[in-house]
């Protein structure tokens, strides 16, 4: 995903001299080529996140299209109030790219995980929240972020995520079908989608798997259309099971009086002290291939479609 981001920025900067990239002392091996090729469209504002976000807002006030690149906690948590007041309150089209979604950096420790970023980001009105599932969605999300003229948060994992789509999606504003099935719909976002795709492969009664790259605003109409013949929704996300996609779907159902059975798979709402790698932490939270498959089977057994 990082390579997709780097490529998207590189391509955009070549055609748009107004584009400007702010790094928060991150980007080794990702932004190297960019800063060599576009030295006047790049600055490293160091380990000073509040300043970096305010500064980006100031450049945006002057009409520049600014992209801030950093590890997710350092574009959203450390500087939440700057994102709130300086970017979103002033409705500035700054793009925040947060890397290391979920527990991608495990076992780096809790300080470097972002399993509440969607919950935090969606508190901000007008902030577009994008969480691509694979490198192709990442390209499409970057295209959307650079084009939409809104404050945008793009949540990406790190490198070497598998490609899940047969072809690049045209739009990320709507849920995307990753595999067909029925009765149960698995809704996911982010790189854990690869686990979901693997989990449902070869199932006798496969569920429909949808990637939801745009978490805010939720493409509700399109989602509803893609839930035809579905009785149970299972959300799967590398995020706390509160505040993320599961909660977004619950809110959406409540707002529109929709009667799906809703099951949520995500991290329990607790700090992580276990020293495990990403796969280990996902496994413990029920986000491994086997446990996702078991959760889907349980949804089917509960009555799935009917």
């Amino acid at each position, binding site marked *: 995903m990082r390579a997709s981001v780097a490529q998207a920025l590189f391509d955009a900067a070549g055609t748009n001299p107004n584009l400007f990239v702010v790094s928060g002392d991150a980007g080794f091996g990702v932004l190297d080529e960019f800063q060599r090729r576009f030295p006047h469209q790049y600055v490293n504002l*160091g380990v*000073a996140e509040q300043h970096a976000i305010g*500064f980006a807002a*100031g450049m945006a*006030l002057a009409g520049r299209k600014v992209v801030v690149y950093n590890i997710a906690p350092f574009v959203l948590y450390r500087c939440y109030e*700057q994102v709130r007041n300086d970017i979103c*309150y002033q409705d500035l089209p700054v793009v925040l790219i947060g890397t290391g979604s979920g527990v991608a950096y495990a076992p780096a420790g809790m300080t470097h995980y972002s399993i509440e970023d969607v919950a935090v980001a969606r508190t901000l009105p007008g902030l577009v929240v994008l969480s691509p599932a694979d490198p192709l969605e990442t390209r499409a999300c970057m295209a959307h972020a650079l084009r939409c003229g809104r404050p945008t948060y793009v949540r990406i994992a790190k490198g070497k995520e598998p490609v899940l789509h047969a072809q690049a999606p045209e739009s990320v504003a709507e849920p995307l079908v990753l595999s067909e099935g029925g009765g149960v719909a698995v809704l996911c976002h982010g790189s854990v989608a690869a686990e979901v795709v693997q989990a449902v492969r070869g199932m006798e009664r496969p569920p429909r798997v949808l990637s939801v790259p745009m978490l805010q605003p939720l493409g509700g109409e399109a989602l509803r259309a893609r839930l035809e013949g579905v009785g149970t929704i299972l959300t799967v996300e590398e995020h706390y099971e509160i505040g993320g996609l599961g909660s977004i779907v619950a809110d959406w159902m409540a707002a529109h009086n929709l009667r799906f059975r809703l099951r949520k798979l995500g991290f329990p709402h607790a700090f992580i002290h276990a020293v495990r790698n990403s796969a280990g932490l996902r496994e413990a939270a029920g986000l491994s291939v086997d446990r996702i498959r078991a959760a889907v089977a349980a949804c089917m057994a509960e009555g799935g479609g009917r």
Partner: protein
Amino acid sequence: MKTRAPTLADEARRLEELARRARRKLIETACRSKTAHVGSCLSCVDMLVALYFGVLRIERESWDRRDIFVLSKGHAALALYAVLNVRGALDDATLAGYFLDGGSLPAHLDRATHPWIEASAGSLGHGLPMAAGLAYARKLAGSPARVFCLVGDGESEEGSVWECALFAPRLGLDNLTVLLDVNRLQGYGRPQELCAFEPVQDKWAAFGWDVRRLDGHNMAGLLEACRLPACGKPRVLVCDTVKGKGVSFMEDELKWHYYIVTEELRDRAFGELEDPHAG
């Protein structure tokens, strides 16, 4: 008849009267709206008048080329509104809606409320990084415009102010001037009693800024300092001021961070803010 060109002293005298007018507007509006932060507003009126009447090139050029002012201590919004009103940029009806239910202007700055409000501010330590970003973008665009930013002394306890102080010199922001309003009183104490605030000019100098310390109520001095040519470094004007300046019973009084101007106190204040040359 031959007229001599106005001197700096003439200009300062003219601006001092405008500052008195702005203070009257400020007191009147604070009284009507029953709002706090009157002392915080009064300490920076002279700086704002110097900027808006003697320094900022605002109207004669397009936005891209015009000077920008960012009020970082957003709780002094009323001072800015009053000065913009005297400047003719913000009409009486708009000012009359200050802090009223269903009104037009909040107690802290919202850029969406008026075209002359360049940046939203209220939570401290936000305006300066934004001003730096504006200055940097202007610099990259080759714009001759300057960016001014007013920061409070209490506000300077925010880490983000010092993050900016650390980066601005390295970024070559010699088009950025900070006016530091050292009124020596914050919300519940004095900066110097709460932290190692002084010698504040040495701190900024150590970070690589061009530093001047001056009387923040001396109009001629303010005009001169704000008009200094760029010197290759960002500049900070450490302005020694008095909280509540211009109204004797408010001066250097912590309570005027909070107190409401009653009609009786308003009339007393007006008595002290009359034009000495009038009548």
